């Protein structure tokens, strides 16, 4: 524990200036650019840019840290499992294990790894399903859920028990994924975002989100315990407890 503290602080301290710069300067600048230069009509463009910005700090910190081969491979394996899982259940729309796997990754390997698994799974799966303006949004949503899961677990609010994970999984799918993706579809599809359009999007998307959330809960219910056991075994067997 004592060894971990400075590590976390160091990560935070590196992340802070970049993140601050992005939040305080670049994002408002983009919005203002959209407002004045682009005449406030380019929601799709501006929103995609902002989502991309939001992921830059994670990528920068990850790269700066020079991650080890093992870490890279675990992230790659989990992301690939998520993608393969997404493809394996292709016949059931919205019934996908991605969120469940991302949460498990976050709990087991920390928020950063959770983010990386989520974002990578979102990105790579679209090499198989087709890239589009939705790609950055999906990457961000999956990544964010992994990040939150990892940090809540570290903070002690999320436990490894089946129910704790299921509840978190259901809520995060409904609120984080559903919340952001419905907004995103307004930004992408609707001609002009308005309160009604957003409301309509949430209403029409609700049932899909509910299926998605139920799928996440179901996957976590059956998968969480064996998956965590397997990951712990790998961590122990190959000395990845760092």
């Amino acid at each position: 524990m004592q060894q971990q503290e400075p590590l976390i602080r160091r990560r935070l301290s590196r992340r802070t200036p970049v993140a601050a710069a992005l939040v305080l300067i670049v994002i408002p600048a983009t919005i203002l650019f959209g407002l004045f230069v682009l005449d406030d009509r380019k929601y799709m463009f501006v929103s995609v840019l902002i989502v991309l910005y939001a992921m830059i700090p994670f990528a920068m910190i990850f790269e700066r840290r020079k991650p080890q081969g093992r870490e890279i491979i675990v992230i790659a394996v989990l992301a690939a499992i998520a993608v393969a899982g997404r493809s394996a259940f292709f016949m059931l729309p919205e019934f996908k294990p991605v969120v469940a796997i991302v949460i498990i990754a976050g709990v087991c390997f920390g928020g950063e790894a959770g983010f990386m698994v989520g974002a990578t799974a979102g990105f790579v799966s679209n090499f198989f399903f087709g890239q589009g303006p939705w790609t950055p949004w999906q990457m961000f949503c999956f990544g964010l859920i992994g990040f939150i899961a990892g940090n809540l677990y570290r903070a002690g609010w999320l436990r490894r028990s089946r129910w704790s994970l299921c509840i978190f999984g259901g809520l995060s799918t409904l609120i984080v994924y559903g919340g952001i993706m419905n907004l995103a579809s307004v930004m992408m599809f609707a001609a002009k975002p308005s309160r009604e359009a957003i409301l309509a999007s949430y209403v029409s998307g609700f049932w899909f989100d509910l299926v998605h959330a139920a799928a996440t809960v179901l996957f976590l219910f059956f998968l969480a315990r064996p998956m965590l056991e397997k990951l712990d075994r790998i961590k122990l067997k190959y000395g990845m407890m760092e």
Partner: protein
Amino acid sequence: MRRSAFAAYHPFVNFVYFAAVLAFCMLWMHPVFQAISLLGAVVNAVLLNGRRAIRFQLRFMLPLFVIMAAANPMFSHAGVTILFYMKDGNPVTLESILYGAAASAMYVTVIVWFSCYNAVMTSDKFMYLFGRIMPALSLIFAMVLRFVPRYMHQLKVISDAQACIGRDYRQGGWIRRARNGIRMLSIMTTWALENAIETADSMKSRGYGLPNRTSFSIFRFDRRDRRLSACMAGLLLVLVLGAASGANAIRYFPSVHVQAMTAFSVLVYAAYLTLCLLPALIQTWEDWKWKSIRSRN
């Protein structure tokens, strides 16, 4: 899919092209520009993916286009040209209908452009571009792309093996099926994690993690890439000048307004048309050249 002449250019050229075309498509809602962009997207998509793919896509896109265009006036009541009033008393305006049509046309165009992007910007090109600035992440992408087909195959192997001990995910009740499906995913996870350790050994053994790693690629930025880049830069310059002068802009609310056509704006249109048709032009040029070489022999 046939070989595309444009895809044979350097990934950097490909990427800048698509970034520019997609950005302009999302930014400029001027009807002339939209028409040019849609035309370019469809022509390129036909050349890249074949006629059948694009027909399939448009069959799916057109209803979406109509729905989206029709949905806008329901939510947005801005604009001065009121056509009629809805039952709830809200006005339906010409401007909001036009705007809805433009916005959905833009969405359709973006999707078609992305289908071209998917055909040209294959994963190895993407990895090459970002391998230098994000070496670790691009390696993760490469590995995931390697693992996914492997895992899909393994899932098949596992499901066959499980079916042969009576654990078929295709048979039984809903819960039983779901449980057998999840069991397969779980078996696959163990298999993937245990086997990945050997892959990690293979990486370490070949020196992964040593400082000063370089990034190799089979792509070369040669003279024709330079020529095309220069050409694209010229077109982009004209377009940005046009945007600065307001030739590309359109105002929908309160009333529709576009700049009057001038000689300069025609030049900008021409530049945009050239840009959007660039891959198709290159393709046609190469086809023609090939034919003329063959006929001479």
